[in-house]
């Protein structure tokens, strides 16, 4: 039963992560960030019992029972990973865009100077 519960939870998290990545690539990074935060929060507001039971489900106990791993910890890991991807995607896009623009501006001023 424990392994089945873990597989079920993993499938849910993978589906969630793929959805966010799909939105990031195909639609918008801002929408992906919104979905990333909104889905768990709304789930907790709409179905607090089910959601909290899901998030507090404990999969493992590491370090001789000292470190429990619940679904909430997995959600935090997923959040940090996907938020990092989205943030750095945004930042690199901006950086590359500004670099391209400056290069283009340099070319234009050089041509007009001749």
């Amino acid at each position, binding site marked *: 039963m424990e392994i089945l519960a873990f597989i079920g939870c993993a499938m849910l998290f993978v589906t969630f992560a793929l959805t966010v990545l799909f939105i990031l690539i195909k639609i918008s990074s801002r929408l992906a960030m919104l979905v990333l*935060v909104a889905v*768990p929060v709304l789930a*907790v507001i709409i179905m*607090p019992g089910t*959601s*909290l*039971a899901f998030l507090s*489900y404990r999969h493992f106990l590491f370090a001789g029972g000292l470190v429990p791993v619940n679904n909430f910890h997995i959600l935090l890991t997923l959040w940090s990973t996907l938020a990092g991807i989205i943030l750095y995607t945004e930042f690199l896009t901006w*950086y590359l865009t500004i670099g391209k623009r400056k290069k283009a501006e340099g070319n234009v001023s050089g041509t007009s100077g001749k």
Partner: protein
Amino acid sequence: MAVRTLTVLIFAITLLPALVYPVSAYDIQDESLWIFQGAYELAAGNRAELEGFTVKVHSVDMDSAEPSAIVLVYHNRDFKRSFFTDASANSEQIYDNELKINVLGINSGIVSLETYKQKSERVWVTSVPKTNMKVGDTLEDGSYRVKLKEVGESGALVSIEGKNGVFEETYQSGSYRKFAGDFMIRVIYINPNTRDVSIETFRPGAPALTVDILTDKIVYGSNEDISYVLTLTNSGTIPLHGITMTTGSSAGMVGEPHLQQAVLDPLKVKKFIVPVRTPVTPVTRNILIESQVTGYDYMGNEYSEPASFEVQVRPYISIEKKVEAVRNSPKDTEMGTDGHFMITLTLKNTAGYRTTLEVRDELPSSMIPEGVEGTEWTMLLDAGATKEISYTAKPTEAGSFTFKPGTAQWKDGGETYIVESSPFTDAFIVRGSKVIIEKSIVSSYLYTGEMTEIVVSAVNAGNSNVRITLTDSVPEGLSLVSGQPLWEGDIEAGASKKISYVVKTISAGTVMLPAARADYTDLEGKQYSAVSDTPVIYIDDVLTTEHNQISTDAKPGSVNVQTGETPDIGNTELTRIEAAGFLLSAFITLFSLLAIIPALMYLAIRGVYR
């Protein structure tokens, strides 16, 4: 008349041995030979003990060009003669045609010599026993083939076909011939009427050496003498000479590493006791004692047989524990809780030096030591000394008890060693009354308003029936719904009684249930009491919203049943807004942490391009 008869009888008796030829006939099996007595390596002053003779090297002269030695010969401990020997011209010396000394070499003051004795010794053993043959019959003995060709008045013509070809010869009754030192044929009797010939053959015999080792036990203490008995058996057909036994040990000390025996006749057994002393060891170890026995036949052929034996050596510190059950009254047939145990620890140090010991003895938890402050002692044990520690232990309750071994710990060469006494296999049974109370809850995690069942069981683990009063109480925070936390009655030995009642939770919190108590009286009227553990019930408030959903989905008990896991209990106190706020704050924290570096880089790049 009588005198005449007696004279004839005496004459006949005197004549009889002369007529019985086999007695002298079998002397043909003996050979007068220089029988090899052994090879020795002797320094000046050393001696070799032979059968009747002693050969002693008096002095060795290594200064001259040819090393030489003066060898003395004793016969029955009396000095007879001295010989000047060296390894060349004077190497062979013979005393009185009885003893021959052959010096092989003189090196580094050591004289290597072989000894021989002139002796008539049985060498030939029957190979094919007496066989009646007719003309044309053939008899085979190994590689030799004997054929009776003709029988006439001159005797029997026999051809012997062997390694050296065919040899034909006419034999008379009683005549014999030896071939190449390894085959002998003898014609015992020729019957002139039937022309039958009785023939037997002989071959040189050989000794067969077997060595057996026996010790009186296989486990010894440190510094203890081992009774090491070496048994030599010559199961061959001729004697074995010049036997030397060399004994060595992987540890320990062999008292007589080299022993000698001049001769071992066939089918004879000789026992030797070799003194071996075990080493002083702080840990149990095995030592291997090895012996090598070497002997020679009359030709000087070597027969060697190894033998070994392994014994275990215990540490030099030993501890023995003896437990004796002492009944309160000699009339008692069984040990009761009013009796006591007399415990004796015997410590022994077999090493040659004193040792400081820390001795510990662990008692069963329900026993109290009497007459001593504790069951740990520090003591100094002199070399070879034995000390005893005696104390009594009082059982406080009935049951079956097995005593643990006592231990002694000490230091040797910076290392700490520990020995234990032999474990006890038998259990001591103490008769008496003993009731065990157990209190349990069907469900320990509850929401307010839920009910659970509390079970109290009393087990009579003693040996007699008891009358028991079982009492329990319901603490604050719980209310009794059904059942009674009280019971009174008799419980037979080995039986149990279980009562249960249902309580309902009133308010949230952690409730420690009070211990259930049993007061009981045995058949003799002695009164005892026992109490149970104090289990805990965790009571939580349900969430203020979505009560039904939480109670079916987030209820710890239901999750527990399905998955075997317990969710964190604290979550159930959160409202949905608090939970959502916690999630949001967690996300914002993560986001802020992740955004620090891109934000700083953004500001820096903006500054550069501006």
